């Protein structure tokens, strides 16, 4: 029962810098389904974060979306009764127009990897949530037993007392102790984990249909990381929220995502169900990536941890054919460096782009 929420089709994002044009994302296609978690993994600089920003149409200068579309199935209520999907291409929205601004935060929330600096230092935790809520004129406080109030979010500004109540409730939901006191704390009075929770509370305060989590736990220690992941899972279930989870931590992705997209140099190289990819990776890059994590219980005495040979290629001067071929252990001379591999279904619901699975 997969219902698409965001469909990225053939997306290309280019950065026109002085030294040349960098294709940060090159022909990327993927689908994020309503209420599901899509994991996006890859090395630093492979275009994960740029893809996330492209969805919110906030590519930093001098970047530009040069091709492709991002279809957003926007759920709108028609005159208060019944809902229908409105199809919107996010790449076509005005970068600072009203439409995209109401989607940002209101319908697609985002959390960043730097909890230390993601909160404005001059505002309290409560003020951040108040701002997010008032920007979208939502009153997400639900009346018990009132099903209609749950569906229809009122388009009026919240009062100060309501905003404070919402803020305390959100802080409580993300597991901050003594939320009624913490609500008045400034970012510098909170610990890193608490700040990240506040960020999550801000992103979730408008009950978005999707949350983009850009390495949300990279800067946190492991115990806090586990708590944050629990909170995200719990909130996802209660609000039927889709999550695009960007990380380079394979362990985290295995526990969070249902489906995984593996990116390399701006391209998706493999996609499939999480278990299948971990059990039976098809693309040599994914295989190498999985080999490079240490495994508990495996006899590895005397062995060194595997690493991927070579360096990521120069982005100005990408290799011909398959971009991974200079580092690939299965390199087939005369083929991989000449022919660009196609997107191919290797088994049901499991895709890869590698010449190993093409008859050339």
């Amino acid at each position, binding site marked *: 029962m997969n219902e698409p929420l965001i469909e990225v089709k053939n997306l290309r994002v280019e950065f026109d810098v002085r030294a040349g044009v960098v294709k940060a994302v090159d022909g990327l296609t993927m689908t994020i389904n309503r209420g599901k978690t899509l994991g996006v993994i890859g090395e630093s600089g492979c275009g994960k974060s740029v893809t996330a920003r492209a969805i*919110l149409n*906030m590519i930093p200068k001098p970047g530009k979306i040069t091709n492709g579309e991002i279809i957003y199935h926007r759920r709108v209520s028609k005159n208060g009764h019944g809902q229908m999907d409105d199809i919107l291409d996010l790449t076509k929205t005005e970068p*600072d127009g009203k439409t995209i*601004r*109401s*989607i*940002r*935060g*209101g319908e697609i*929330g*985002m959390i*960043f990897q*730097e909890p230390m*600096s*993601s*909160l*404005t*230092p*001059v505002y309290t935790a409560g003020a951040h949530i108040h*701002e*997010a809520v008032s*920007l*979208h004129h939502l009153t997400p406080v639900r009346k018990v037993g009132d099903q209609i109030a749950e569906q229809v979010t009122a388009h009026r500004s919240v009062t100060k007392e309501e905003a404070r109540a919402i803020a305390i409730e959100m802080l409580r939901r993300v597991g901050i102790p003594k939320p009624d*006191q913490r609500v008045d*704390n*400034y970012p510098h*009075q909170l610990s890193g984990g608490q700040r990240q929770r506040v*960020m999550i509370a*801000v*992103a979730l305060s408008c009950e978005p249909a999707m949350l983009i989590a850009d390495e949300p736990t990279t800067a946190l220690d492991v115990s806090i990381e586990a708590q944050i992941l629990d909170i995200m899972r719990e909130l996802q279930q209660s609000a039927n929220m889709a999550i695009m989870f960007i990380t380079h931590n394979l362990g985290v992705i295995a526990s969070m995502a249902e489906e995984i997209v593996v990116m390399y140099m701006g391209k998706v190289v493999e996609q499939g169900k999480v278990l299948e990819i971990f059990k039976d990776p098809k693309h040599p890059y994914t295989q190498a990536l999985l080999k490079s994590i240490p495994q508990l219980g495996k006899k590895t005495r005397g062995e060194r941890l595997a690493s991927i040979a070579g360096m990521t290629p120069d982005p100005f001067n990408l290799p011909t054919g398959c971009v991974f071929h200079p580092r690939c252990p299965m390199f087939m001379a005369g083929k991989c460096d000449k022919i660009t591999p196609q997107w191919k279904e290797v088994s049901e619901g499991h895709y890869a782009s590698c010449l190993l699975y093409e008859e050339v």
Partner: protein
Amino acid sequence: MAVAEQPISVPAPAKQRQVSQSYWSLVWWKFKRNRSAFIGGVLLLSMYVGFVLIPEFLAPYALESTSEYVEAPPTKLHFVDSNGNFSLRPFVYGMERKIDVKTRSRTYAEDTTRMYPVYFFTHGDPYKLLGFIPTDIHLYGVDQKSDPDAIVLLMGADALGRDWFTRVLYGGRLSLLIGLIGQVLTIVFGTVLGVMSGFYGGAVDQVIQRTTEFLSAFPEIPLFMALAAAIPQYWSQLTVYFMLTVILSFVRWGGLARQVRGLILSSREREYVLAAKSAGASDNRIMFRHLLPSTMSHVIVIATLAIPGMILAETALSWLGLGIRPPLTSWGTLLQDAATVRAIHTTPWELWTVPFILLTILAYNLLGDGLRDALDPYGSR
């Protein structure tokens, strides 16, 4: 063997209130410890109250009340009369004017036969306190009703026989206000343009930065002259006064804009800007709600240290006859009265304006210096 288990009484922990010192309480704490800055602040506060709010009360006479004591020297306060009797209440002697026929000059001598005690909270010229409370109480004065010749001129009189101290008080109102209002305008121009310049970069930045360069490269006095000359003569004095403040701040916003731009350039790359944007905040919101507040402590210091320049500029312009013109009274126009060699020779008490200007500038500098230290409460010292 059953040892009765003694319940260990743990003293209930004293209810601890979470003490978190806010930034501003730290600033206040540090500011209070800096004695010279504190004195400067108190001095300025009392000056603004005295000169701007209640000069009518402090002055013994109305601004326009003239007398026959033209260019009279300051009257001396006495406690002991010519017979050696001490009185706790100070008194002044009457003044007798003599005209030297040969040199055609006026001299004043004390007439010890007439004694006028100085009363406090006495009745005098009627005025409206703070603009709306009608009263005629003055801080001090002599009884003019029983003897119209009685007068007290602590700082002498000018060429129309007006009390110089009264004029200094009223002049302070315009001079101190022009510094404050002008600086508020400068802050508005400087921060808005500085934030836009830093946030948008590119063409907006270029235009704003080149404009500040142009303005700062322009020699100030000729620019003031040109702008002051552009003020139509038929405008009311009050309009001219406000135009002057606008002109002063128009010329001086550049430096502030440049500093704010620098601060914004570094903070606009911070993650919270991105976070605000991803929460759906508009550019204006990011600029003025998220970025601007963090520059405020810097702006306050710069502004405080720049107010003296503003006051001095007004004084200089009015002295040159380009700024405020009589009948409006400011410290600049008062200095203009005292600007001739003849005035310095015959009425040196008209230079009493100068210590007031010096004191104001000094107080502002002390305050600004103290604020700079205090607003960085985490810094050393």
